[in-house]
Each structure stands twice: as structure tokens, then as C-alpha cells.
């Protein structure tokens, strides 16, 4: 929970949401004692008095359908598996958020090795997805070389995740309260090799791509969303940073190992496809540096019993993680027996879809694909 502070437009919608929630916590407690009304989505947000951030109707949808699933699936592994399938390309992001919610509800403090794995996996996920998306953008401007080279460069990153946790998209890797696949010094050595091979090819390919007039002419001034627009529609993550709006949970509300990393968000100002691909290129390099720094100092893993607690009754908790698309937010409320009465999930795409709609205005139809790919929002997450 953040300290006190004024709620302003400059803060991301979720930050405003938390702040206003914190300020209205007495009201939240009142709402919590009336679970039926939350169920029907009737009073969930009147408690926050901040109707601009999440509309009443979306709250209602999420309460009924998604939390529905979280209620039916009562055991922790089932719930974690559900969290894994919120967005298949953001598995680490969503499972980390879910784990933080769960640990906070149960009052567990995850050990350093657990948070290390999460931070590392989050940065690997960011690199893999940005690389894949740069490849897809190349495909959409019919630049075959960039498409093939960047497309194949994603493979060693996700294959490494398989070497580590047995699944290319990191399913099964992150679990609440325990270190399912401890990161060993051998894995660190292996990852070093992977990055050694990855970096020169990534740098070389991008150098070529970013000096190619035919590519730049498709990127520049295509799909522009202005600072004022992103501010008013409340985009998050890369879709905010592309237009000069600094929103990055890693620096604004650091979690896991980010307080030590002291992350500096990468900000661009034109809000066009070019800004978005530049952010991706630079974030890959930045994440690679973080990963290298982290694996130079792998925390020792001591085999211990997984900590399993049970959620405290009558609690409200909220967790924020900067996934590769932007901030992911999960929030949960328990009843007086400690069972969930509400579980709300917000994928970054929820806010960012509108930015895509604004970006494609006044563009040729042939520019739709690069606008779309430069955002690459989750089709399975936006209506959460």
C-alpha cells in the first residue's frame, strides 16, 4: 500500500485506484461486509469514488465471471493454474502477481531466492516478448530478414525457460510460497552463454533495421497517440512510455528485487510505431543488463518446506507487477472465514486497447498491422 499522496491525473489509473482505495479504506470495510452487493457489481466502485479508472460494468463482469472461476477452483494449485492461463504470453507476470496476492493474504514473506526467480523470469519474459514483437513488426512491413532473425532469436530465450522450469512459456515455474525450480549456478552459467550468443545477433539485426529508410518510413509518424490522449484514456506500461508518460511499476512501486535494481523507465515522446519499437529494442538491452547483474550473484537456495498458510479473514489486498506490456493488477477480498469473496484481475491490455483504436485513426489500412503489432495487446486479457 503506498504512502499518502495526492491523486493526480499523472498517476496511472491503478495508482489512483489504490490511493483512492486507501483513502476510503473505512468504506471498503463497509463494502466488505456486504458481499452480495459486490457480487452483483453494484457498489464495488462507489466505495472508491473514482469512477473514471474502472467502470462499474467492467467490475461487474469480472466479479461474476472470473472470480467465479477463482471461487469454484478452491485449491491453491488450481488457482495458480488459472492465473497462468490469464494471458499465455505473460505467464510469469500474472503468476507473480497472483503469488504476491496470496502471500500477502496469508501473511507470508517470500524468501529472497523466490523473489530472485520471479524478477529474473519477469525480465526474461520481457526480453522474449519484445524480441518476438520486433520480429512481427518486421513481418508487417514485409522485411523478411528482420522477421526471420528476430523471430529465431526469441527461441533461445524461451528454450532457456524450458531448461529452467520445463516449459517454454514458463508455466509451472512460479508458485506462491515456494521455490519450485531453484535457480542454480549451473543455470546461471548456461544463461550467460545464451545471452553471449544472443546479444551480438540482436544488436546487429537492430542496427540494420533502425537505419533502413524503407523501415523507418513505415515506423515514423505512423499510429500516433499524443501525450494528452494517453493521459486521458489512462494507458499503462509501454503504451504510456511511448508518449512521454512515465508509468512503470518497477520504479514507481518497486516489488521483488526491483528496489535494489533502481530501474529507470525508458521514455519516448512521439507516441508512434517508431517510439514503440525503440522502447522494445532498448528495453531488451536494459533487461539483459539486469539479468546479467542478477545472475552474477545467485542467492543460495536452502531446501525448505514450502510455506503454506491460509488467507486471513476479512482482508483486502492488491498486488501490482510490471509485466512486459505494463502494469498487472490483481486484487482480492476475503470473507470472515478467509475464503475469497472477490478476485479482480486487470491485464495491462484493458487500458491499452483504446490506445490502439486511437492510433489507427487517419492511417492507411495497410498500416493497421504494424500499429497492431507494435502494441501487441492480449486478446485474452482485455475484457477482464
Amino acid at each position, binding site marked *: 500500500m503506498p504512502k499518502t499522496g495526492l491523486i493526480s491525473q499523472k498517476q496511472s489509473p491503478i495508482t489512483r485506484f489504490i490511493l483512492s482505495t486507501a483513502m476510503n479504506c473505512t468504506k471498503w470495510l463497509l463494502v466488505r461486509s456486504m458481499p452480495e452487493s459486490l457480487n452483483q457489481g453494484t457498489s464495488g466502485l462507489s466505495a472508491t469514488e473514482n469512477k473514471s479508472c474502472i467502470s462499474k460494468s467492467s467490475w461487474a463482469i469480472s466479479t461474476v465471471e472470473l472470480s467465479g472461476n477463482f471461487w469454484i477452483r478452491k485449491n491453491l494449485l488450481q488457482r495458480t493454474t488459472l492465473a497462468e492461463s490469464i494471458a499465455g504470453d505473460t505467464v510469469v507476470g500474472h503468476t507473480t502477481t497472483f503469488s504476491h496476492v496470496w502471500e500477502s493474504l496469508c501473511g507470508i514473506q517470500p524468501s529472497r531466492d523466490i523473489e530472485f526467480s520471479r524478477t529474473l523470469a519477469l525480465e526474461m519474459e520481457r526480453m522474449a516478448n519484445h524480441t518476438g514483437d520486433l520480429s512481427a513488426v518486421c513481418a508487417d512491413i514485409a522485411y523478411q530478414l528482420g522477421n526471420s532473425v528476430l523471430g529465431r532469436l526469441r527461441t533461445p530465450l524461451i528454450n532457456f525457460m524450458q531448461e529452467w522450469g520445463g*516449459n517454454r512459456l514458463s508455466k*509451472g515455474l512460479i508458485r506462491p510460497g515456494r521455490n519450485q525450480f531453484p535457480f542454480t549456478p549451473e543455470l546461471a552459467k548456461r544463461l550467460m552463454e545464451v545471452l553471449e550468443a544472443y546479444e551480438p545477433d540482436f544488436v546487429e539485426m537492430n542496427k540494420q533495421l533502425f537505419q533502413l529508410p524503407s523501415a523507418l518510413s513505415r515506423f515514423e509518424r505512423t499510429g500516433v497517440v499524443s501525450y494528452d490522449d494517453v493521459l486521458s484514456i489512462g494507458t499503462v506500461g509501454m503504451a504510456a512510455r511511448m508518449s512521454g508518460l512515465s508509468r512503470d511499476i518497477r520504479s514507481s512501486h518497486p516489488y521483488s528485487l526491483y528496489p535494489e535494481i533502481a530501474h529507470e523507465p525508458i521514455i519516448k515522446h512521439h507516441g508512434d510505431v517508431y517510439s514503440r519499437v525503440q522502447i522494445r529494442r532498448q528495453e531488451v538491452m536494459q533487461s539483459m543488463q539486469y539479468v546479467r547483474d542478477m545472475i552474477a550473484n545467485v542467492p543460495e537456495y536452502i531446501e525448505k518446506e514450502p510455506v503454506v498458510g491460509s488467507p486471513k479473514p476479512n482482508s483486502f489486498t492488491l498486488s501490482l507487477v510490471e509485466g512486459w506490456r505494463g502494469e498487472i493488477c490483481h486484487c482480492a477480498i476475503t470473507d470472515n472465514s478467509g475464503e475469497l469473496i472477490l478476485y479482480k484481475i486487470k491485464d495491462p491490455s484493458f487500458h491499452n486497447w483504446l490506445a490502439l483504436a486511437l492510433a489507427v485513426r487517419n492511417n492507411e489500412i495497410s498500416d493497421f498491422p504494424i500499429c497492431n503489432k507494435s502494441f501487441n495487446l492480449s486478446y485474452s486479457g482485455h475484457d477482464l
Partner: protein
Amino acid sequence: MLDNIKIVYHQGKQYIRNTSTTKVPGIFRGRPVISTEKVNETELVGLCPVDAISANPVSIDLGKCTFCGECAKQFPNKIRFTTDYKIASNERERLIVKEGEDRLVEVNPETVRNEIHRVFGNSLKLRQVSAGGDGSCEWELNASNNVQFDMGRYGIEFVASPRHADGIVITGPITENMAEALQICYDAVPEPKIIVLVGTDAISGGIHAGSSALNRSFLDKYPVDLYIPGNPAHPLTIINGLLDLTRKREI
């Protein structure tokens, strides 16, 4: 131009020469092997998040399993996941792995429809429908066509319209909201056509099985030609499954 050639040269050889014998790196969870050791079966069955494990004899249904690996972690002497990625079959029952059996999961050539070898043996164009999928199997289908896995070399490709397709590939648990779109897409594919289910979600609903948001009635209407399990299915599972279905000869 020279720079481009240099880049191509620096990539070296990326393609996997033999997609049916290559080894996957690390601790991939593929086909499980179940030993005959005696364990507390109630506990074993109970820990699975998707009811994929049955008792007496102990078996795992790969069509339901999310490959979370929990059973192997808790009962390492009972269940072991091998790196065998060839786990696709045209028969639903073959996806059930029983204790004491170290048998491959394969396509049964006897029950493959005749026209499949004849018509699709050398070229197969598929239309993909993501029916409420989470994007992971879709990513892996995409990866099957990248320069490493290069499924295109076998004449298998994805197309942008069902009119150009020989069949549909379904991912995701088939939600109510996608049920009609799936039907329309299937209807638009000319005969003869095949149906392929990719991923645990598509085969059984996975973790979403039983949810009121699903409508899986499409699958009651038509026979499924190939089941490709995985969460998500590995590109090599996908490629080998499709090849085993459409070709008689070894590649």
C-alpha cells in the same frame, strides 16, 4: 546488401535437421511414465488440479493434464516425465498413459480416414481458430513455422482464410462467445477437411473444464482427427502429430 549477407551468415544453420529425432533441451515435461510402485492413490489423485489422474490402475490422461509437474514432484518414484515430445494421437483413448506401461503415444494408422493420406499427404493448409485460448498454444503454432522448426518444409502451413484451408486447428477451451464463430469458420472450409485440437484446453477444457462460460457442443457434432496435447503443445509435438496423421512414410 553486404550487411544483409553478413547478418544471414552470422545466423549459421538454424533449422532443426530432423524434427522427429532431435532432443529438446533441459527438463521438458513430455510423455509421463508411471511405475508400478505402491503409493497412496487417493492422495495422488487428489493433488492433480484438473483430475487428470485416475486410480486403480493409476493413469494420466494427457488430454486433461496441464503438465504442471506436481504429481512427479510429490511422487517422484511413481511418476516421471520424459522428454518424449511425441504425444499426439488421433484416438482420444491413446492419450491415457497407464502405470507399468512404457508405451509410445502414437497415431493409429488403421483409424485414420482414407482421404487424409491421399489428399493431404503432401500439402496441408490449416486455418487456426483461437476459441478462448490464452495465447500460449497460438504462440507455439506460430513458432512451428519459424526458421528453426520450419514446418513449411513439409508443406504444412497456416492460411488466413478458411476458404483456402484443408482443415481447422482449434486452441482454447471453446468459449460460448467463440462457439458460433468456430462453426462458421468450419462451415467455410471446403470438403474434405480435418479438425485438429491443440493443447489441453482444446482437448478437454483443461483448467476451465466445466465452466459455464464454455460451449463445447461443436465437438459433439464432428469427429476430431488429431489431438495434440500440451500446455502449450510444443512445436515438435505439433509437427510430429501432423506428420504422423498425414504421412505414411517416415520423414
